[in-house]
């Protein structure tokens, strides 16, 4: 490091401390390493990590960074799967975790105003006391923040019926790289200022501005729910049940699938008694009013599932049984750590009708590249999370993993799908973006980026280059 850079570093840190206070600026080498990672295996080193606690502090930091040419990488809990928070050249990490106030909860009008550092689970826990909830709940909901959820437009197990994060954001406040604050939208769906700026911010991965407040839609918890668990010989049988349930006019809340490898790693982790020889497991959940229709739906689903010759089919009758159904799914991702030190999680999504072909393609990819790939899927959405297991220290194997990742994306695109259903592009999938979109479409993304951040200060080099 040159002396000149070091001086700059001191000035930078001093300026950040002046704005945010010493306790909210991290520059220690070890701590900065921790913020150099997210849930991918990518890595970078920021110049500092700052935790603004108010919109004004965000504005001051943004203004300082603009005047000194420092880039800003917005970050929540860093659980993203796309390299979205990996530090870029000459950047600070601006972390929203300490802006975590729930500012207002208006149950009668189905809206809450919250800061971006609020963890999804904390909202759920608070709302549950009143019989309310916020529907989008990514599997990472115990750790991930609303800033990150909106930044990625996260999905989760309930998307098939309830939609994704985008559908539950009524409005937001954000700061752009020119230091200007905007509140767009309101406390309902009718308040966007002509262009639906809120929707554009959802899933923008920190590249358009730094979000400082949200108005979110909350809802009463549905009066009744039924949870079912089916084990099949093959994943295609589970896919058949998914197609038949939808064809029967039922819109389940949840259709989550795990394949044999993940059933086994989950069983290793939990000892819950999952049948280790099952080819696939499907969690099916329906909810709605409590007038008996759900029992009719359960009957229909039971018949539909039977057509696919399941090895086992259970209907949970108690809360404990419901929890048992979900346990394996909740631990699924972490459980693969028993098998291999590293994993790469993809997020390919295909039209639901292509589900069986996608399963076959993933199995083939596993063979082609001689890698273990477990399948976890939000089956109702056609959204797969193939978990490619490997050891990052093995360079040759890592190289094969990258090739397998590209093959999986190609598989999804060939089946008329997309490379990302809910995890975003970030750095990880950026090189593959031209495989999904023609230049004119990527150029349209650039037009939006230029309209919001013409100086390319917010999370530059993520998703695409300007």
């Amino acid at each position, binding site marked *: 490091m040159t002396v000149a850079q070091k001086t700059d570093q001191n000035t930078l840190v001093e300026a950040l401390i002046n704005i945010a206070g010493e306790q909210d600026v991290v520059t220690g080498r070890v701590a900065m390493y921790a913020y150099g990672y997210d849930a991918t295996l990518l890595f970078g080193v920021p110049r500092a990590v700052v935790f603004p606690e108010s919109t004004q502090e965000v504005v001051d930091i943004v203004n300082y960074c603009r005047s000194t040419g420092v880039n800003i990488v917005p970050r929540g809990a860093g659980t993203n799967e796309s390299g979205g928070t990996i530090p870029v050249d000459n950047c600070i990490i601006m972390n929203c975790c300490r802006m975590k106030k729930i500012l207002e909860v*208006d149950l*009668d009008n189905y809206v809450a105003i919250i800061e971006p550092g609020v963890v999804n689970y904390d909202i759920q826990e608070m709302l549950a006391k009143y019989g309310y909830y916020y529907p989008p709940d990514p599997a990472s909901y115990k750790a991930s923040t609303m800033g990150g959820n909106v930044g990625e437009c996260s999905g989760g197990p309930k998307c098939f019926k309830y939609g994704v994060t985008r559908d539950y954001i009524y409005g937001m406040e954000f700061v752009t790289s020119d230091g*200007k604050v*905007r509140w767009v939208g*309101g406390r309902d769906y009718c308040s966007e*200022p002509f262009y*639906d700026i809120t929707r554009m911010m959802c899933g923008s991965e920190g590249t358009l501005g730094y979000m400082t407040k949200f108005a979110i839609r909350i809802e009463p918890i549905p009066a009744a729910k039924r949870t079912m668990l089916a084990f099949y010989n093959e994943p295609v049988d589970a896919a058949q049940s998914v197609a038949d349930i939808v064809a029967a006019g039922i819109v389940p809340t949840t259709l989550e699938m795990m394949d044999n490898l993940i059933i086994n790693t989950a069983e290793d982790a939990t000892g819950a008694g999952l049948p280790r020889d099952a080819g696939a497991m499907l969690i099916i959940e329906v909810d709605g009013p409590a007038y008996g229709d759900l029992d009719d739906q359960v009957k229909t689903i039971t018949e539909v599932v039977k057509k696919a010759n399941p090895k086992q089919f259970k209907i949970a009758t108690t809360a404990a049984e419901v929890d048992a159904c979900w346990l394996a799914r909740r631990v699924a991702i972490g459980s693969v750590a028993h098998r291999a030190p590293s994993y790469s999680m993809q997020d390919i999504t295909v*039209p639901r009708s292509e589900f069986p072909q996608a399963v076959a393609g993933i199995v083939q990819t596993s063979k082609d590249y001689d890698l273990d790939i477990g399948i976890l899927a939000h089956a109702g959405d056609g959204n797969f999370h193939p978990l490619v297991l490997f050891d990052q220290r093995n360079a040759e194997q890592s190289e094969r993993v990258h090739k397998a990742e590209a093959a999986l994306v190609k598989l999804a695109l060939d089946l008329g*799908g997309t490379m990302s259903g809910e995890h975003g592009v970030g750095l990880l999938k950026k090189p593959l973006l031209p495989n999904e979109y023609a230049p004119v479409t990527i150029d349209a993304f650039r037009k939006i980026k230029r309209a919001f951040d013409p100086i390319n200060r917010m999370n530059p080099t993520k998703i695409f280059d300007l």
Partner: protein
Amino acid sequence: MSQIVEQLKSLLGADNVITKDMTKYLRGGEQPAAVACPGTGEEVAALVKAAADAGVKVNVGGAVVDTTGLSGGIAVVMKRMNKILEIDRNNLTCWVQPGMPHKEFCDALLKEGLYFPPEPYAVSTSSVAGCIGIGDPDSKAFKYMPPRTYIIAYEMVLPTGEPMKIGSKCIKCVSGLDLIHFIAGTRATLGIFTKILVKLQPAPVCRSIVLADLPNITTAAKAFLSIQKRRLFVSRENAITNKLGQHIWSGAKGAVAFVDIEEFPKANVEYAKIVEAELKIAGATATKIISDEKEYASAELGWLKAREAVNLTDKKVRFTVGASNVVKGLDAAKGVVGALEDGEFALIEAQLGKVTVASANPEADAVKLNKAAMPLGGNVSGLLGSKLRCDEYSDQAMFDNITQLLHNIRKEFDPKGILAPGIQF
């Protein structure tokens, strides 16, 4: 100008470029040079490219085009691009051409057991592209979400004449910036749709409408509040004053409540009973539960006609309040526009907290109604509402920042300012 008209004739065929008797295709006082009716995406691209090269303005509509700012420009009518291209039952999706009439589209899908929930903006003229282009959260948006939720892919011609594609049959996609859903409500300022892929739902297993004849619209709002307090959410929870209410219930003596229930059979029956009971408790002098398909369709059409009349007049103010504050919102409206029952119309879409009232002086009344709505958890809708909110906080800078962003976006896409000249921020 004749040069561009000649050019269009050679691109689209003389029969598809109209220069005489254009009125039936136009809304507004200004006169375009021609009405052009392209038949393919390629023709739309060629047309826009020619207009962009010549610096001629273009606006588009399904059946009717707004001519504001379009003097000497081209009114593009999509009536020839009006077909369903593909219904995919397995994926619950449908490719449709932009000019397909919205109501016809919904009806055709229902016959197939499929459902496109958003309501037409103006039932007699709206197209599917208009539904997405206007993006208006319709009265079913509380249950089914606004129209933007339903677009999952499209092909569009940009203001430069370049064709662009985005999206797929996947119901989830976060690959790249979200130009898929953002496009809803952009009113042809960023491009002209040539093909749209929407997601569908299975048709409701059971549908009923509860109608009530009530002394006034406030009594309906009170009943709706009681229904919400019971945590009972329906598809539509609307009420309208007597004059336009006649479309729904001819002969009704007071305001008409229109509650639409789309649930599974048992819940449907129970919901209808509860809704009817609450409306009676609130003072309904007559009620009807409609389950017969034909009667349902006719009552729904009545509602859509009333909605069209409200949507197409400029003499109105639309504002929101929190869903539990609709009664107070109506009281505030009375204070501003006078007795609601005496005016042309007052309309509530209660679950959304949406109130629309006729107003002889919309600009002045909007200021007052916004002031009243803000403490009730709402505001005047749209860009005007953003401005009034900023005014309330004496924060002109905030509004300037918002409009600057809108201008930036539009300029990036349409540097020559060709498309939708009637839309000004």
